[in-house]
């Protein structure tokens, strides 16, 4: 059986559009230039190709339409009937039949004209034959355009039909209009069905899904059915009748015992008895709705009798499935969708009965025997008569009990909100649990701007203390610098190990400088490719620390200095850096983790105050003055710019990435001829 997907049918174009599409495609995709002087066979072939190409395209598109529209006999009878009810099977078949004949006619036209083209002896004759052929094909389509319009409408409607799976677990809800079917489905599923006080609010089938025992059930809401003879029913009612007739589902027949739907119980019972033939072999539950208006016990005698009759009918279905005759609770249920009492019970009961029925059927069918052989439920054999219940530690049980009590005792914020007027009225005080030095400060309003500054920028509880520390450190550092200068002046005071260390440090430094000079390049003298960060992690402060300790020196102050000068620290305020200087270990290990962009942004030049202005050029290197040097630099940059834009590695790079790009070597021109490329 072909699988149909109603939502995936291709759009059916109108007659005119169809013709336009195909003719313009022929004009674009076949050769367009031909001259009188060509050999006659070439002329014939040129025009024959056009005729055949047009016919092929028509054939393709019409075949697509015919294949994608479902054949009413091939799909599930539920859908077949539903489509018949909605669109009238005969019209539908006629329309598709017309498309089919159109397709055959176009094939015949093409064959005839290709035969005639073989006798064409001049350009004019061949051309006229081609014009006649295409014209006839288009006339065929023009004649069929009302069918195309009709099919397009059907397609649009079909694509919006609710996706009902006829083979899965289904619960069907039926009854008179306005009894509360849509409210029920709104309660148990997420389907948002319109509920209005007038009858026939629901005009088509609605689907919702609900879960029970880890299985998904689809719940189908039908439009209300009136008690009429079968022939008088309109399309809307026929939809529900179709669903009842073809779907193997659990049926919930809704009864409005309060009579507020406008029909009394006698009428509803009459309806029940007239359609009870449709309930054959289906688990049936009679649901009395709107018990908040009228409880079941308060019904009058005759009404009670009618209800009992219906229950008896429903019991028959239970017996028919092999259930016990005493289970009267399951067949007649009461509920109220307004107060939500009994709604879940109805759903559970319906799901349970449907599940049992399906399981039974499956057990009885032949297919199960294949599977049964493969199952084996292994139960451990009893060793002795000793009881071995599951072992739960006492502490766990106590904790659970306490938690339960706790949850009951604790008042939630939500309850508080509901008490004080609801979501829009009450706003919770978020600072209720704040821990402050003085309890009265909890509800104080914090100022945000003071004297033109943001208050938060200046907040720190230990601000005075930090200021002192900072000044102390600053003083220390100045002294240290002076000491260091003095230190370096007399190198004789170094011990041999220190001298060795110094020599090593200097050697390492010169190596680094050389490396850096080799790699140094500005963006202008190198093709602009994105800068990758130091992947080998050669320049981290940890590594420096390790190397210094290998040499025998204490690395902590050097690390601190490096860290305070590092890029993420440069933009920071002085207090922070001081504080971080103390606990150097949990300082940010950010030199490796920062993105390169961020690093570049907070570059060293920004924090320097005595560096050179950005545009200044130092005269020297053989130039007369700065101006000449600037001019030379400009010339250098200019000569390199074009190469960089072409992503060339240098002067000698002449690689062509693609030798024959497709867009230059193929395709027709929008207007004009393609005699040269």
């Amino acid at each position, binding site marked *: 059986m072909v699988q149909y997907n109603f939502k995936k049918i291709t759009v059916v174009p109108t007659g005119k559009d169809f013709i*336009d599409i195909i003719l*313009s495609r022929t*004009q674009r995709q076949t050769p367009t230039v031909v001259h009188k002087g060509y050999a006659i066979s070439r002329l014939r072939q040129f025009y024959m190709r056009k005729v055949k190409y047009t016919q092929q395209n028509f054939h393709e598109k019409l075949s697509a339409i015919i294949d994608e529209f479902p054949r009413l006999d091939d799909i599930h009878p539920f859908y077949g009937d539903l489509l018949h009810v909605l669109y009238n099977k005969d019209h539908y078949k006629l329309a598709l039949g017309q498309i089919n004949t159109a397709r055959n006619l176009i094939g015949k036209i093409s064959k*005839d*004209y290709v*035969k*005639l083209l*073989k*006798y064409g*002896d001049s350009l*004019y*004759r061949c051309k*006229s*034959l081609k014009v*006649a*052929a295409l014209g006839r094909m288009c006339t065929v389509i023009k004649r069929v355009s009302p069918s195309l319009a009709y099919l397009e409408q059907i397609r649009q409607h079909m*694509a*919006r*039909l*609710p996706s009902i799976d006829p083979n899965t677990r289904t619960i069907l809800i039926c009854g008179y209009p306005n009894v509360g079917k849509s409210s029920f489905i709104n309660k148990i599923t997420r*389907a*948002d*069905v*319109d509920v209005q006080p007038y009858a026939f609010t629901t*005009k*088509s*089938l*609605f*689907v919702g899904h609900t879960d029970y025992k880890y299985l998904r059930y689809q719940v189908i809401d039908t439009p209300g059915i009136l008690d009429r003879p079968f022939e008088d029913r309109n399309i809307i009612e026929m939809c529900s009748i179709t669903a009842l007739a073809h779907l193997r589902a659990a049926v919930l027949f809704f009864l409005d015992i309060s009579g507020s739907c406008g029909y009394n119980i006698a009428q509803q019972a009459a309806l029940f008895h007239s359609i009870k033939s449709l309930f054959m072999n289906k688990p049936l539950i009679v649901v009395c709705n709107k018990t908040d208006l009228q409880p079941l016990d308060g019904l009058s005698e005759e009404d009670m009798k009618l209800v009992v009759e219906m229950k008896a009918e429903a019991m028959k279905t239970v017996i028919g499935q092999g259930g016990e005759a005493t289970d009267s609770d399951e067949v007649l249920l009461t509920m109220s969708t307004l107060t939500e009492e009994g709604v879940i019970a109805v759903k559970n009961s319906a799901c349970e009965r449907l599940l049992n029925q399906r399981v039974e059927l499956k057990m009885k069918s032949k297919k199960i025997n294949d599977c049964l052989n493969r199952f084996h439920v292994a139960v451990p054999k009893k060793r002795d008569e000793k009881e071995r219940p599951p072992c739960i530690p006492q502490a766990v049980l106590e904790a659970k009990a306490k938690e339960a009590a706790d949850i009951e005792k604790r008042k939630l914020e939500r309850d508080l909100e509901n008490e004080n007027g609801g979501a829009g009225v009450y706003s919770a005080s978020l600072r209720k649990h704040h821990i402050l030095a003085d309890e009265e400060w909890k509800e104080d309003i914090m100022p945000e701007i003071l004297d033109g500054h943001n208050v938060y920028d200046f907040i720190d509880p230990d601000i005075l203390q930090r200021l002192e520390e900072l000044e102390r450190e600053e003083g220390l550092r100045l002294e240290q610098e002076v000491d260091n200068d003095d230190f370096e002046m007399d190198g004789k005071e170094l011990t041999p190990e220190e001298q060795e260390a110094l020599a090593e440090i200097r050697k390492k430094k010169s190596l680094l400088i050389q490396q850096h000079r080799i790699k140094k390049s500005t963006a202008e003298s190198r093709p602009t490719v994105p800068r990758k960060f130091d992947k080998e992690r050669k320049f981290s402060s940890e590594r420096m620390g390790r190397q210094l300790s290998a040499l025998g020196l204490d690395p902590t102050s050097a690390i601190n200095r490096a860290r305070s000068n590092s890029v993420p620290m440069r933009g920071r305020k002085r207090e922070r850096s001081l504080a971080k200087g103390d606990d150097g270990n949990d300082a940010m290990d950010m030199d490796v983790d920062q993105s390169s962009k961020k690093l570049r942004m907070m570059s060293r030049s920004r924090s320097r105050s005595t560096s050179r202005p950005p545009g200044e050029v130092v005269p020297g290197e053989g130039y007369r003055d700065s101006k000449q040097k600037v001019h030379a630099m400009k010339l250098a940059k200019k000569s390199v710019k074009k190469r960089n834009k072409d992503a060339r590695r240098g002067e000698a790079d002449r690689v062509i990435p693609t030798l024959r790009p497709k867009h230059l070597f193929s395709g027709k021109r*929008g*207007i004009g001829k393609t005699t040269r490329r």
Partner: protein
Amino acid sequence: MPQGDYIDLHRKRHGYRHDHFERKRKKEAREVHKQSAIAQKALGIKGKMFAKKRYAEKALMKKTLAMHEESSSRRKVDDEVHEGALPAYLLDRETTTRAKVLSNTIKQKRKEKAGKWEVPLPKVRPVAEDEMFRVIRSGKRKTKQWKRMVTKATFVGPSFTRKPPKYERFIRPTGLRFTKAHVTHPELKCTFNLEIIGVKKNPNGQMYTSLGVITKGTIIEVNVSELGLVTPAGKVVWGKYAQVTNNPENDGCINGVLLV
């Protein structure tokens, strides 16, 4: 509202955007400029098609505008003069009109004798022999050129059998043989697809008539039993003459007008 009508459902529940109608109005107002941009920029075949469509639209617009502008004004009504109505000063004279009622068959016989027919296409472009026939070379060395192949549409009749190919002088290829014609009734203005019974006369020559070649202006006889015509005497008419009005070899079909 069906479950799948999401747009309508949303509109029903939430209404339209606050500026929806204004935007819609403005967009429609901009369509005019867009159309004109397209009309100016579209080139080639697309431009021609667009221009044609637009011309038709404009003609229709002008008509509707004219219709709206029609005012109910009073105009002088001309009394229609009936044919044969006599002016007042001649009314007294008795004029006897004598007319001979001639039956259709007599009329046709007279016309046939005169050899003149009233046909829709009295004059037709003459077709030369080298246009009508193509020379087929035959023989062992392909030097003999006595065979000819007809290049126009032909009609051969149902009981036609070829002469033995060796002796056949005029070849009428099967691909160019037609059996049906699209004949228009001049008064009813509708076209029927009728079978050809025979070729009556080809204006280019008697040889072509005998060969059954159909070109523009040829008189053919068609089977009109479909139309259900009856003579005054009560006999069913099943054959009538029609004249061919197109070039069948260029169009692949024979179109004609019925001669009533």
